[in-house]
């Protein structure tokens, strides 16, 4: 062996004795791969189209508003920072429906999950990395237009303190939104290995609950039972976020008649949102207990 190893073997096998960076590194790698994947980076050109279009659609209204505000020398932006995501919720739902299944169902459908679990990372690492990646992707999508608005507002020389406060409140709101929406969409997608079902189910959950809640809220408003409106908002993801931000983040509610929840009810909203996020994480963990090898 020693005599042979002095020769130059071009195609000989080389052992690897470099560093092995372990579990935390693998988790980070999975996170960045999934985050990039959500925007189609590192994947085929075809899979970049939809997320990039949605990203553009998301930012375009903000750019137009800024342009209008700058040229008309308006005193305020036409839309609050906190309101922007509610305004474009359809785009957010579409992004979620397209990208959440691709983040998790692909691994299930093509049975790649066992390959992950035969490596140092564990179930918790996988779920954490995927959850964080999807939330970050959604945060990028929802925070980017806010940044456009903020920069534009500063260019238009609007009040700095006011705008910064609004921007910060908006960021907190979309961060919460990203976590909540990602959690719900990932759980739905993780249940089915079929991507098509995942897409349909995510869209259905997002739009049907919102449609149902706003309809019932409108009826309640018509009948004058305004007290019920705030409670009804607990039953759809988007109205949950709306409720939290109108109670604590200085937003004006999009509920009928602007009947947002009071601080007391707002606490319930926050608890429900946090509970749902934790619940989704727990459900994901449970789901992956079954799909080991």
């Amino acid at each position, binding site marked *: 062996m020693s005599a042979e190893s002095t020769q130059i073997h071009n*195609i*000989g*096998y*080389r*052992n*690897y004795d*470099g*560093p*092995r*960076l*372990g*579990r935390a*590194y*693998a988790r980070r*790698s*999975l996170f960045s*791969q999934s985050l990039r994947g959500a925007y189609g980076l*590192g*994947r*085929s050109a075809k*899979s970049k189209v939809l997320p990039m279009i949605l990203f553009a659609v998301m930012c375009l209204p903000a750019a137009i508003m800024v342009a209008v505000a700058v040229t008309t020398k308006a005193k305020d932006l036409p839309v609050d920072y906190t309101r922007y995501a509610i305004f474009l919720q359809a785009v957010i739902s579409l992004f979620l429906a397209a990208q959440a299944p691709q983040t998790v169902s*692909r*691994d299930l459908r*093509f*049975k*790649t999950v*066992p*390959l*992950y*679990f*035969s*490596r*140092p*990372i*564990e179930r918790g690492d996988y779920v954490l990395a995927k959850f964080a990646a999807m939330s970050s992707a959604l945060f990028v999508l929802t925070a980017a237009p806010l940044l456009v608005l903020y920069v534009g507002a500063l260019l238009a020389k609007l009040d700095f303190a006011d705008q910064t406060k609004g921007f910060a409140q908006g960021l907190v709101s979309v961060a919460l939104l990203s976590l909540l929406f990602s959690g719900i969409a990932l759980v739905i997608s993780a249940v089915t290995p079929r991507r098509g079902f995942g897409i349909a189910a995510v869209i259905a959950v997002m739009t049907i609950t919102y449609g149902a809640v706003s309809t019932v809220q409108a009826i309640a408003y018509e009948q004058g039972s305004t007290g019920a409106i705030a409670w009804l908002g607990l039953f759809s993801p988007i109205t949950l976020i709306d409720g939290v931000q109108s109670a604590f983040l200085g937003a004006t509610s999009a509920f009928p008649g602007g009947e947002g929840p009071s601080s007391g009810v707002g606490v319930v909203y926050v608890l429900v949102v946090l509970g749902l996020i934790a619940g989704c994480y727990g459900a994901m963990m449970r789901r992956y207990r079954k799909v*080991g*090898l």
Partner: protein
Amino acid sequence: MTVIATESLSKRFPRVTALDRLSMDIGPGVTGLVGANGAGKSTLIKILLGLSPATEGRAAVLGLDVATSGGQIRERVGYMPEHDCLPPDVSATEFVVHMARMSGLPPTAARERTADTLRHVGLYEERYRPIGGYSTGMKQRVKLAQALVHDPQLVFLDEPTNGLDPVGRDEMLGLIRRVHTDFGISVLVTSHLLGELERTCDHVVVIDGGKLLRSSSTTDFTQTTTTLAVEVTDTDEHPDGTRVLRDALSGRGIETRTGGELPGAGHTILLTAEGEETYDLVRDLVADLGLGLVRMEQRRHHIAEVFTDEPRQESAPGRAAAAPGPAPRTAAATAQQTGGGRDER
């Protein structure tokens, strides 16, 4: 040095016992794990990877306890699953690089190792194309590459020849052999085809119903199980060449039988090869009788034969030493008398 050691390892599910007090030691080299479907092969691999706790007993891989050091084990071990596990829309290179990083390799090392490994398993230009367009043989190579990319000390290959045609099978078996001889990586390969493993492995472990049926080195195995199939032509002098040869062989004290009920099998003579001299004897007899030797080949044993032909004895959870090479048969293996089957009458 022992690569894998289990000690009365059991795994029970509510309705089925997958592993029943399995004790064995497996040394470095290529080890075949043979068993019918549901024999507990996959369950064993799962436990050895530290992914599923054993109901009782202990197991160690590379000297690490599976119950406490699962993460460390998985860093040094590769795993190739039986089923399809490749996403079709990425290229082999991208996929294997990602898997290398999942094993903890830094980005640059991951790319270098991927290029090396894919070349070693025999994927060249096509590695930049999406996996969806690959043949089954190429996919198996990618699966093998992802198990080897982080240069493990041991790989578990679960049915690596599944779905391959005979040529692909031979190539894959050759590749597995090289994983040990050239790369220095120990291999545990499962199959339900005993004959396949006979050619590739240093050592074969047979499990059935979660129990150890036998564990012995392959040289041992083939010696006791080699059945020779001989077919000869008829000549004018000997209108029934098969009969003449059988008579001649029994004259030399060698028992023969015909190939069985299948059409054409009546012309096949089956006999037990004791060693090199049996081959020579058959050759000489055929030549003396002036018959044409159509074929003389080793019969590949299907694993089912090992199970059906042998009297099912309660296999005591004996510890069968499993050093590679022609190890003398251990007391445990002999006591079990599971080897040989019909050949050891």
